[in-house]
């Protein structure tokens, strides 16, 4: 014999017609004898009707404009712009660049130290060093001087 709890748990499946015939028959039999479960199913049906009426009425008049496709095509053709809105995120990205370039400069230095292509590596090292300096300058422009910690003693 099916319980109220089982009926409650299967109310959506019952309404969706998703129950096996045997389970459906048991639920119907239970509802025949249990007023509160019968009321639950009735209430759920009424709720569905009310919410369907409200939600469809509220959105019934919504239509996309006739030139919608052209607008989307124009927007899609625009180049993608990555916007970084928060100052914290900007700083993090700048710091990541500095770190990557710093590691790159170190690797190039190591390579030039082991011999071979020293002159070429020197050019790269200088390039990295100047880029790092420019980035660090940019970062320090972003951070107020009062928040900068002294390095070394």
């Amino acid at each position, binding site marked *: 014999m099916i319980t109220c709890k089982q009926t409650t748990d299967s109310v959506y499946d019952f309404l*969706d017609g998703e129950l096996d015939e045997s389970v459906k028959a048991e639920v119907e039999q239970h509802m025949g004898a249990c007023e509160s479960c019968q009321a639950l199913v*009735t209430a759920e049906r009424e709720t*569905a009707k009310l919410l369907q009426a*409200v939600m469809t009425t509220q959105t019934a008049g*919504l239509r996309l404009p006739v030139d919608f496709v052209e607008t*989307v095509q124009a927007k899609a053709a625009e180049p993608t712009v990555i916007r970084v809105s928060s100052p914290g995120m900007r700083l993090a990205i700048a710091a990541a660049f500095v770190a990557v370039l710093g590691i790159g400069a170190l690797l190039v230095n190591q390579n030039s130290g082991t011999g071979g292509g020293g002159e070429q590596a020197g050019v790269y090292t200088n390039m990295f060093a100047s880029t790092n300096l420019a980035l660090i300058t940019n970062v320090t422009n972003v951070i107020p001087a009062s928040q900068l910690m002294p390095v070394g003693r």
Partner: protein
Amino acid sequence: MNEARTDERKTTDEELSQWVADYGDRLLRAAYWYCRNPVDAQDLVQETFVIAVKSADRFERRSAVYTWLYGILRNVGRHYLRKKKPMVPIESVEHMLEVESNPDQIDLNMATEKVEEVMGGLSAEHREVMVLRYQDGLKVRDIADALGITSGTVKSRLHYARDAIRRNLPPDLNLFVPVGT
């Protein structure tokens, strides 16, 4: 190479027109419940289709087109909710000022107002199951498939959202009854 790219572009343009014709208004109705504002809803759908066009080459056509587009809309809608503060749509205010004499219409207007209000306070997850269930008329199993969650989770979210609406409807409109044993 350029010809191939032109053909590709043409296909996407043709597909876009078809997608908008087939699913545009349906997505617009779903988008409405993220923002409860027709203008913003249109922006959300526009953003959805722009993303769809840009990522069309990555859509492997394994899932239905609507499921794919709806998945994009969900992300766009959730982003909107994170950015934007809840607001009362102008339409609701105008509708409050109208004088209605038909009692059934008064009840529906009142219920609409309350449902709108409660939906605005629900999380994106709860709104989504409500829209798919009561606006699109999907079965629990189909909602679970569309959202990639279990049927049990769908039922639990429906139950929560339904309870929230029940608590807020005026008693004389209240169609819900307490459950016994």
